[in-house]
């Protein structure tokens, strides 16, 4: 080829290549996706004008910039163009409108996308944005763990509209994960495992061996995990535990109780039912499940111990959630007689409760094992910084490349897969690992992984953090505090967001809600306020003056200042029209859910004794906005005027019929 020809060709190719180089940019996937969106949007548009707008959309990168949230830039909407577009509901992905939730689609500009979904916000191509390449910093949260995103800002244990996350966080607390693994916000966590110094008084060597081998097989409610102990270790631990000495007064109490005569098992059975122990315990699987299964209790603990324990549980375990029942001495004997008659393991060997004779060498070995296997982490108080397992700070942001998959080559190389496998089979990764095995089902595992994925490496900026409002959750010190502790109100009830969830009635504003005198009677003999519910408060046999003191304290302390003492003050007299209130009661259809007299619906509590039970100020406030204190109240908010509310209050206040207590 002559030089001229070569020059001509090279010049043409040169210009052609230079003209062609922008193709690499023009062919970027987001551009064709945006052109596709033009077509889809125009096709789905409700009007020609809207179609025109879709067709004329410029092809450009879209982004949400959040300078206050770690200077985030989320470019997800470059492809997910219909996320905030109502016309795109049900459109094919990636154009579909975001499913409506509490924060979407209204809060896109406030939170962006990656603060909930993770993923690489800066990216404008799919693989990088979704974080599917191996060294991506932030893979997108899989759909089953979506709620982990909520937990990044919502720090409380229970997050509304995030049930999986809430369950996971609760499960971590009840399974005592925080006893071994430090998590921010739970630095002071102490497991509620019982102290082990009364084992020798309580049970036998055979029972203890069975328990240590597999707690869940012995008691389905057990929160203690399976430590997969070998035979020798089991023996050593048993000898160690039996070598521990209980306090002398406990030894005396148990011995004395063991010497007492047998009780009346028929009376005991009735008492057992009345005491509603299954509010927390289970019998043959029926009951609440937050306390041990009692179906075989007589083969689990000795008679003397049972009697002494029920008489004073707090002496044996100051941190137990079981309240102090004010039983008579004979009552307890009767109940335990009932246990020994019916609630025993009929297949157990005769020596199941026979105490172990301690071998000192084995006991010493067991003492070492008690520390090295991690038993101490739950059964003793552990200070911050001394926790047995690795801490979980920032576990939700760990990169998959920094995780040790050990032997588990079968796992997907992602953080959720690693976490799920760790929870399922902790020791399968390598030899020498010490984490015990928990018997979680698939849903529970998913919940826990969600809760773990919600733990960020660095907390979100303060403006974005949403901690639950903790109201006055104070339990006063002094005699009132002792009473609350004695009867363990917080084991079942919540005050200000803290407490148990066995009762559905929080006591936060109970003082503004119920009349004092009624409360005193109720505490003496609790009855079923809402007949549709099978549960009611156990009969703790609270003595009258204790009940009076408690009721006074509740009326004084647990109030809502917005509830007026007298809602009719400074209102015209016509507002106190009970007849008109009765008419309104019918108009609003309250009968559908509430009983007055003999008729009405069973859904809500009966209102026959409103005057006795409830305070007028509270009733008025309730009628104004039933969801004022709890968002999940089912009574509809009719938006009624204050006048109507007052009239209905006046009517209800005329109802004094008191339902007899059902035994």
């Amino acid at each position: 080829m002559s030089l001229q020809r070569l020059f001509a060709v090279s010049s043409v190719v040169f210009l052609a290549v230079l003209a062609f180089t922008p193709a690499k940019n023009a062919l970027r996937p987001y551009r064709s996706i945006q052109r596709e969106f033009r077509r889809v949007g125009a096709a789905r548009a409700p009007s020609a004008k809207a179609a025109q707008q879709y067709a004329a959309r410029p092809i450009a990168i879209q982004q949400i910039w959040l300078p206050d949230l770690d200077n985030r830039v989320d470019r997800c909407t470059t492809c997910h163009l219909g996320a905030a577009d109502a016309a795109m509901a049900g459109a094919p992905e990636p154009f579909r409108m975001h499913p409506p939730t509490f924060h979407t689609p209204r809060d896109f500009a406030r939170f962006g996308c990656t603060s909930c979904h993770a993923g690489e916000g800066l990216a404008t191509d799919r693989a990088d944005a979704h974080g599917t390449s191996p060294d991506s910093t932030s893979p997108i949260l899989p759909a089953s763990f979506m709620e982990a995103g909520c937990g990044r800002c919502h720090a409380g244990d229970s997050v509304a509209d995030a049930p999986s996350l809430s369950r996971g966080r609760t499960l971590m607390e009840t399974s005592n994960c925080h006893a071994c693994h430090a998590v921010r916000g739970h630095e002071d966590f102490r497991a509620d495992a019982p102290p082990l110094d009364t084992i020798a008084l309580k049970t036998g060597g055979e029972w203890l061996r069975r328990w240590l081998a597999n707690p869940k097989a012995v008691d389905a409610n057990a929160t203690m995990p399976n430590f997969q102990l070998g035979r020798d270790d089991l023996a050593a631990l048993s000898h160690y535990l039996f070598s521990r000495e209980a306090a002398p007064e406990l030894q005396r109490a148990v011995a004395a109780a063991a010497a007492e005569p047998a009780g009346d098992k028929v009376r005991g059975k009735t008492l057992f039912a009345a005491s509603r122990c299954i509010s927390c315990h289970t019998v043959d699987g029926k009951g609440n499940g937050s306390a041990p299964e009692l179906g075989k209790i007589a083969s689990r603990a000795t008679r003397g111990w049972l009697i002494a324990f029920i008489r004073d549980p707090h002496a044996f375990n100051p941190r137990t959630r079981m309240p102090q029942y004010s039983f008579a001495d004979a009552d307890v004997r009767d109940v335990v007689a009932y246990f020994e008659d019916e609630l025993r393991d009929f297949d157990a060997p005769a020596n199941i409760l026979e105490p172990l004779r301690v071998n000192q060498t084995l006991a010493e070995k067991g003492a070492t094992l008690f520390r090295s296997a991690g038993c101490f982490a739950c059964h003793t108080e552990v200070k911050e910084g001394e926790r047995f397992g690795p801490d979980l700070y920032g576990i939700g942001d760990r990169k998959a490349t920094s995780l040790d998959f050990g032997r588990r080559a079968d796992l997907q190389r992602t953080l959720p897969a690693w976490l799920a496998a760790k929870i399922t089979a902790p020791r399968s990764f390598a030899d020498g690992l010490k984490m015990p095995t928990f018997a979680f089902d698939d849903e529970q595992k998913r919940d826990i992984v969600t809760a773990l994925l919600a733990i960020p490496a660095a907390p979100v900026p303060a403006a974005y953090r949403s901690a639950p409002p903790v109201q006055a959750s104070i339990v006063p010190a002094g005699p009132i505090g002792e009473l609350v502790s004695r009867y363990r109100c917080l084991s079942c009830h919540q005050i200000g967001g803290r407490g148990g969830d066995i009762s559905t009635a929080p006591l936060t504003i109970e003082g503004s809600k119920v009349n004092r005198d009624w409360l005193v009677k109720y505490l003496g003999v609790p009855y079923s306020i809402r007949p549709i519910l099978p549960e009611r408060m156990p009969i703790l046999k609270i003595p009258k003056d204790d009940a009076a003191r408690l009721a006074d304290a509740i009326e004084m302390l647990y109030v809502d200042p917005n509830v007026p003492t007298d809602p009719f003050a400074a209102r015209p007299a016509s507002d106190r029209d009970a007849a008109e209130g009765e008419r309104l009661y019918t108009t609003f259809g309250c009968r559908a859910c509430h009983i007055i007299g003999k008729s009405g619906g069973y859904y809500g509590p009966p209102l026959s004794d409103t005057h006795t039970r409830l305070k007028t100020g509270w009733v008025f406030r309730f009628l104004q906005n039933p969801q004022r204190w709890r968002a999940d109240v089912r009574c509809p908010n009719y938006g009624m005027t204050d006048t109507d509310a007052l009239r209905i209050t006046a009517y209800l206040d005329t109802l004094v019929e008191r339902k007899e207590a059902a035994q």
Partner: protein
Amino acid sequence: MTAFEWARNTSVYRSIIRHGVLPTNRNRSLIIFENLFLHVHPVKVRERSLRFTHTYWLGGITLASTLILVATGVLLMFYYHPSVPQAYRDMKELQYVVDDGVFLRNLHRWAAHLMVIAAFLHLLRVFYHRAYRPPRQFNWVVGVVLLIVTLLLSYTGYLLPWDQLAFWGVSVGTNMAREAPLIGERMRFFLLGGNVVSENALLRFYVLHCVVLPVALLLLVSVHIWRVRKDGGVQGPPEEGARRRAQGADRDVAETPSAPRPLRPAP
């Protein structure tokens, strides 16, 4: 006359472009020696030096890639902050947002590789053609220094993306530098602006890569090309030189015979 011809006759045009339009040797000479950039060339060159096998154009390839690197480098500088961790984010922004950002960065990177390879091949070519012989010894030394500057440019640029590849590649390299006796530790501290590869190292490497080393490169390349000219043009395969020496020429090359030789008066 055509519009082009008319334009070429205006006084504005002729104040800028001073040579005529006719293809005379005079005009061709003027094009060369009245141009700042071109007048490093002689007005006439040996025909055999135009052949591809004369030098394989390796010096030219190196220079071409240098020009591409400077152009793409300046454009990249518009998008880059030499701070941690903004540097990495800027690389991502180039990839995700900047129009033709990927192309720009790719071009810069492959041109850098080409420059290193071409410089090395150029060195080999000069060696195997024995073109380092007198009077070109010093130019060879300048060339070796240029090769080192090229490698340093590549190395300082390597750190700038601030990714794992960059960070650890430079860590390994500076750890090697530490092994030099006496000055090793100090040299490493000077390079890094500290004891570890950190923001200071990034800033230093950035300044080295964008200012110090390009200036050094520019100066040395100027000297290098100037010396080529002064030493009589590029020298190709040694056969010609040998043939010429066999025929009695005292030096491998002669001044272009078209330039008049200075006449000395009789003693």
